C-alpha cells in the first residue's frame, strides 16, 4: 500500500464550479502537506503548503489538513479554465527540507 493515496480522477467541471481534491496518507510522521499544480509537459509548481493540521487560504484556493483522519483536501472556488492541470499532493516529515512523498495526481479539466 502506498504511503499517500490520491483520488485518481480525472475530474471535469464547468467554469465557476467548486472543486475538491483529496488525499489520504498512512505515515503519522508527516508534518508538511503540499499541493502542487503541474501543467502538461512542465515541472510541478508549489501552490501552497500547510504545517500540521488546520486550514490555509490563498485567493480561490483553500487547503485543509486533518491529521486525526490522515486526510487532506484542496478546494478551488470559482474554477477557471486556466486551472486545468494535474494537481499533486505531497507530504514530508519534520525538517524544512528533504524528500517529499507524492500522490499520483488528479487531472482537472475546467470547461468554459
Amino acid at each position, binding site marked *: 500500500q502506498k504511503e499517500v493515496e490520491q483520488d485518481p480522477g480525472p475530474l471535469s467541471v464547468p467554469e465557476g464550479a467548486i472543486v475538491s481534491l483529496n488525499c489520504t496518507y498512512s505515515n503519522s510522521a508527516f508534518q508538511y502537506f503540499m499541493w502542487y499544480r503541474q501543467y502538461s509537459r512542465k*515541472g510541478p509548481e508549489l501552490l501552497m503548503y500547510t504545517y500540521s493540521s488546520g486550514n490555509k487560504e490563498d485567493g480561490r484556493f483553500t487547503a485543509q489538513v486533518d491529521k486525526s483522519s490522515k486526510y487532506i483536501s484542496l478546494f478551488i472556488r470559482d474554477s477557471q479554465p486556466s486551472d486545468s492541470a494535474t494537481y499533486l499532493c505531497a507530504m514530508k516529515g519534520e525538517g524544512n527540507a528533504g*524528500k517529499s512523498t*507524492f500522490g499520483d495526481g488528479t487531472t482537472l479539466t475546467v470547461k468554459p
Partner: protein
Amino acid sequence: GAGVSQSPSNKVTEKGKDVELRCDPISGHTALYWYRQSLGQGLEFLIYFQGNSAPDKSGLPSDRFSAERTGGSVSTLTIQRTQQEDSAVYLCASSSKRTSGRVYNEQFFGPGTRLTVL
C-alpha cells in the same frame, strides 16, 4: 531570473545503453533533488543533495542509478544499462538553504527530461 534547467529535454536510447541527465539548479540553492515520474503517476523520490552533506540516496531503485553533484551546483544523474522500465520523465528540483522554524523550503522544479528506452 533563470529557473532550474535540465538537459536534454528528450532522450531516446536503446536498452542496455548508459545515459546521463543534467540538472542546473537555481543559482545559490544548496539543496538539489531528483525525482522520477512515470506516465500517469506521481513523483518518485530518487536522491537528495544538501550542501556538503552526504546525499540521501534512499530512493535510487537499483545500483544502475547514480548521481553526482559537482561543486555544489550542477548535478548529473546516470543510468547504466538502461531497461525499458526506466522510461519516464526525470525531474530535478532545487531549494534554498534551510531556514529555522516551520517554513517549508519550496522546491523549484525544472521541466524534466523525457527518457524513452526502446
